């Protein structure tokens, strides 16, 4: 069973050095575990495949869908249901534009939120990288970097790298 070795760091610069150290020591980039209680500002923390997001595209797609639904709901419903608008036109974009706009915005919000959850893999039942005991240490520390390894020689390497780059503490988690 793989063992997780996690180093606790105070600054993002230390954490970044740990990432580089682990990759340099032969740990695959996608096997490096990184977590933080504040935004990690350096793109180097991200695996290359994670740097691009389609959130803007899905927000726009959601907006277009919302706009189409808004138009259908107002114009089509008014025509099909035979509303009696008191001498005003049945389909009046001036009045319907407001409903269409709101549903467009709602679509953009929906597209953004759905993409957020899809790309982050949330919701999950619990934190993906920490058990409760390590999490307590992590909460006050700020940054955590480590790796999941299943060979004893790798355990020694990861432990050494994390301590060399200045880990405040190193935790083991099965």
């Amino acid at each position, binding site marked *: 069973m793989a063992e997780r070795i996690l180093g606790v760091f105070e600054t993002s610069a230390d954490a970044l050095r740990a990432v580089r150290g682990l990759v340099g020591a032969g740990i695959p980039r996608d096997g490096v575990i990184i977590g933080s209680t*504040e*935004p990690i500002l350096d793109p180097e923390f*991200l695996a290359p495949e994670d740097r691009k997001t389609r*959130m803007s595209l899905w927000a726009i797609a959601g907006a277009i869908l919302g706009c189409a639904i808004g138009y259908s709901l107002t114009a089509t419903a008014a025509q099909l249901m035979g509303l009696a608008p008191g001498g005003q036109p049945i389909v009046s974009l001036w009045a319907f534009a407001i409903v269409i706009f709101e*549903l467009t915005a709602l679509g953009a919000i929906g597209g953004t939120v759905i993409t957020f959850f899809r790309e*982050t893999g*949330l919701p999950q039942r619990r934190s993906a990288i920490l058990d409760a005991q390590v999490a307590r240490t992590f909460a006050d520390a*700020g940054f955590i970097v480590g790796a999941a390894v299943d060979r004893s020689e790798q355990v020694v390497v990861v432990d050494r790298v994390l301590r060399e780059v200045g880990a405040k503490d190193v935790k083991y988690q099965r």
Partner: protein
Amino acid sequence: MGDKAGSLTTNMMHEDLIRPLILTGRRFYLVVAVLGAIVLWGLAAWGYQVRTGMGVAGINSPVFWGVYIATYIFFIGISNAGTLISAMLRLSHAGWRHPVTRCAEAITVFALMVGGMFPLIHLGRVWKFYWLIPYPNERGLWPNFHSPLVWDFMAINTYLLGSFVYLYLPMLPDLALIRDRVAGWRRRFYGLLALGWSGTPVEWHRLEKAISILAVVIIPVAVSMHSVVAWDFSVALKPMWHSTIFAPYFVVGALFSGIAILMVAMVILRRVFHLEAYLEPIHFNNLGLLLLTFCFLWLYFTFAEYLVTWYGHLPDEMAAFRFKVEGPLAPFFWGMVLMNFVIPVPILAMRKTRTVTGCLVASLSILVGMWLERYLIVVGTLSRPRLEFAWGHYAPTWVEISILMGTVAYFILLYVLFSKIFPIISIWEFKQGRRLRAQKPAGDVPVMANEPFPGVM
């Protein structure tokens, strides 16, 4: 900013901001009990109105909208406090915004929830409320999409949903932090709400991106929402309602009262939770200056609105004008000018009085003044319709006053409970702001806090 905040260690910060969630004093229960009693009284009055009929309210023909609709506009106005102000500060990279955003966003959600109740209260037969919802039903009836009431329904619900998301998503990291620091049922509770947030780079990246997109989307939604409320009035051919500037006038008034309620909330939170190191005088100074700007903007719009009516001198319009400025509503009108301009401007204009206490006094004054403005808009025009034989008067009854007090107490209660259960200051944003300030040289321009990754808005 930053002397006090800069001296805080991460652990101290966590203790300060999470402690109020864990420890509960007797004062909290007392406040909840008092507010709960007022809410119950308001509910009883509403129950009486539902059972007896709308006749127990003071509204009549021609004044068919009264305190309920005035308070509805007022609450929808203050709902602009949060998400809109927070989004504007975020997009403008205001470096001092970090401790302010969540206090503000929570106001939006609760003000919308409470404001949205008023059309239902005003409806009388509240069980028919679902007629506003567009859905296919067995009678083949659809709501009339030409109706401003349906626009209201769409705008308020879009803003409420957007504001809820805008409040909740940025709260995930803090909920996870609390989950990792507490035990027992609290750990399960916050764990459930944190949705398994781990703080991985991908999660942070996507959160920053989502917040940026939502901020861009939510600003026009907020503006549209209060514009729609204004169009409820201005699309009617009523004296002093049928005005082209009503929408921007309402939006300015909404921001004006929104900033005021935000400052009141900040003063109280600062005092009750001992957040002096987080909500510093500079926050009050900056928001005070913003409020001062809005005092002048409000005066400008009010003057433009009344000047054009007076200059046109149309008999119908002048009847409503005189009713407000010289007639029975004159004390309300001049009280509004006093509260919205004469009192707050000197306080906010002078650095010596633009203190935390000074800002509180000015903000409370503005809140009263803005409620008076909403009352004048609703009651002033309806009391003086175009045909003279239909002129009337309106005075709120004890039922309306009780429901008004009950809903105000309900709003405060919701906010109190929220600040007891959730960190009222965004912990991760505060830490981010502090770190960014520490990185830049003194006197530098605010750091672009939202540009952590290439391609992120």
